[in-house]
């Protein structure tokens, strides 16, 4: 049955009352017995109240910011809601991996807590011991390690009564930890977004969402936690680590629990097509999936086709393959393809040279040699509008490629404590995304980025952050490095490429060692693995007229020499 979409003033109002005893979160624990545990909505709320009580005992009050760093499990979600019950403002940061350099982790965390003025950082019992000693912060920020589960609240917690304009929570957007921007979202923005999204998805009471997506990412947090939280939809969740090690496990969960909805980035469509063995595929029944939504990276027709080819025998249909264009700054989705259309993700073919040289979409037939495909991300949700804007700020007509600007009633209030950054991107209530795309017949197509942001597996990296890490190597000429993304047809996402100039040509005999050291430090600081680190002699990198490394020209030089 379709869910009746009601109006609420705050997220908390939506949590109060209603049906309490249905399954809310099923958490998969691969290799454990039992292999999964399920809590009802009432049990989840009791756990959230226990966290609220714990936070209250540490002096947390309305408006205080709380940073949560926990493994992907029910306590992370319950503590998030627990903070909101007090009117406090939670934010989730990524759980540290073993690859991370402890001192970098410390300074990154310090940067985030200082920027949002966090009162409390809550870590769980699994937080690595060696890092724990590193994260003592300032006098203003207390670090607590929570037990699982926290002791039940001794009496009913008095829920806050936030107004629609109060900040509900903060999402952290792209950037190295510490330089990440805190996207502050009001209750009204979140509720508007979820109403429009539920309407477009034709959300039903019997829907069930399967997800491995990390909760520090908007797609994991909003689509796979806050949406089902608000509408009491059942979530079947696993940790990103379990999924990465055995991608088939997500499909097995979808099959076992007859899940209906899931969101994954473009690379995962291809990853699932390539990395699942026939043995793991046998017995999968995926016909219950009514929407598998491609989001967080530019949508590629080839990746959707690869997924369809791999899983049509398991019951996946074309009508179930969808796409969406979303960003934390808009709470989540701006567009979403329409449920029930025979081909929801429209692909158009356009002339390659008109696109590359004139930013113009001229229709071609797929069999044409000069044709390049673009996949739609669907139409705008209610109360969301998109404009395509030229470099001089004027609005472009359909079929012209330019920067995507968004206007909606689910927009962020600005980057927390960073009015300077907010001013750069918010103009007359339009958010300038720096994404590049075009509109055709009401469909939004996203083709890339205006700045050189590198999107790898749905995560955004700024090249300047990577170049700064590389520049610190003693053999490398500071400031003479270039990082860029190179789309990999095989992976369905970008490979990270790095070019670095040495100070002295004599040191090139140690090229292999230098490349290995750069590789190691990039992994330790940003967690992404370079596909190629190319150490080159002085003056190899092409400079702009301003004397800075020119990324695109250097990229072209690298490609012409390495094709």
């Amino acid at each position: 049955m379709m869910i009746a979409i009601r109006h609420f003033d705050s997220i908390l109002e939506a949590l109060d009352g209603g049906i309490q005893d249905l399954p809310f979160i099923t958490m998969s624990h691969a290799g454990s017995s039992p292999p999964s545990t399920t809590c009802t909505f009432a049990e989840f709320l009791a756990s959230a109240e226990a966290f609220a009580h714990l936070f209250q005992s540490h002096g947390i009050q309305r408006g205080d910011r709380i940073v949560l760093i926990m493994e992907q499990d029910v306590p992370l979600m319950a503590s998030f809601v627990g903070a909101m019950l007090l009117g406090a403002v939670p934010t989730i940061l990524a759980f540290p991996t073993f690859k991370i350099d402890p001192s970098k982790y410390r300074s990154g965390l310090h940067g985030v807590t200082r920027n949002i003025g966090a009162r409390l950082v809550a870590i769980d019992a699994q937080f690595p011991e060696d890092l724990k000693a590193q994260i003592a912060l300032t006098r203003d920020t207390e670090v607590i390690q929570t037990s699982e589960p926290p002791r039940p609240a001794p009496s009913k917690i008095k829920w806050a009564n936030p107004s629609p304009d109060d900040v509900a929570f903060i999402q952290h957007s792209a950037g190295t930890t510490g330089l990440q921007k805190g996207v502050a979202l009001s209750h009204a923005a979140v509720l508007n977004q979820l109403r429009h999204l539920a309407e477009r998805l034709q959300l039903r009471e019997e829907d069930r969402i399967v997800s491995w997506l990390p909760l520090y990412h908007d797609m994991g947090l909003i689509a796979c936690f806050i949406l089902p939280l608000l509408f009491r939809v059942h979530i079947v969740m696993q940790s990103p680590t379990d999924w990465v090690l055995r991608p088939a496990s997500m499909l097995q969960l979808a099959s076992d629990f007859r899940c209906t909805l899931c969101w994954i980035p473009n690379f995962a469509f291809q990853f699932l097509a390539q990395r699942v063995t026939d043995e793991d595929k046998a017995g999968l029944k995926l016909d219950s999936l009514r929407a598998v939504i491609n989001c967080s990276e530019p949508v590629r027709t080839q990746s959707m086709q690869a997924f369809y080819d791999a899983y049509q025998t398991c019951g996946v249909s074309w009508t179930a393959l969808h796409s969406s264009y979303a960003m934390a700054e808009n709470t989540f989705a701006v567009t979403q393809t329409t449920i029930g259309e025979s081909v929801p993700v429209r692909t158009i073919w356009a002339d390659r040279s008109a696109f590359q040289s004139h930013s113009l979409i001229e229709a071609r037939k797929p069999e044409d040699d000069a044709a390049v495909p673009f996949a739609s991300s669907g139409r705008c949700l209610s109360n969301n509008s998109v404009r395509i804007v030229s470099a001089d700020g004027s609005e472009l007509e359909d079929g012209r490629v330019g920067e995507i600007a968004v206007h909606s009633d689910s927009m962020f209030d600005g980057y927390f404590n960073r009015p300077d950054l907010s001013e750069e991107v918010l103009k007359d209530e339009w958010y300038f995304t720096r994404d590049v795309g075009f509109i055709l017949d009401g469909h939004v197509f996203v083709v890339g980025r205006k700045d050189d942001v590198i999107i790898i597996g749905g995560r955004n990296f700024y090249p300047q952050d990577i170049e700064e890490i590389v520049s610190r190597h003693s053999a490398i000429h500071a400031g003479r490095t270039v990082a860029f993304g190179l789309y990999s047809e095989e992976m369905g996402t970008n490979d990270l490429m790095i070019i670095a100039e040495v100070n002295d040509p004599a040191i090139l005999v140690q090229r292999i060692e230098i490349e290995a050291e750069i590789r190691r430090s990039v992994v330790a600081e940003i967690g992404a693995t370079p596909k190629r680190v190319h150490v080159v002699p002085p003056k190899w990198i092409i400079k702009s007229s301003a004397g800075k490394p020119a990324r695109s020209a250097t990229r072209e030089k690298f490609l012409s020499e390495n094709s």
Partner: protein
Amino acid sequence: MDIETDALLAFIKEKLIKSRAAELTEDTPLVSSGLIDSFSLPQLLIQLEKITNSRIPTGRVSPQDFETVRRMMEVARRLGVRKA
């Protein structure tokens, strides 16, 4: 070194390594050094299971267990369930 370790090293060298690496041994760090990325872990897991003829329960292993070939072989011995 045993045959299983040799086979795993050969697979990593031929299929997964992304750079002109120095020598690869059973103690060479693989993930933290950036020689392989997390997208390669499923292939590595499948290969480890194939070589040791076992099934490894993923919930009980972490990416850190794939840091070296020696560690992977230990994990397979400790947690692998032999296939019939």
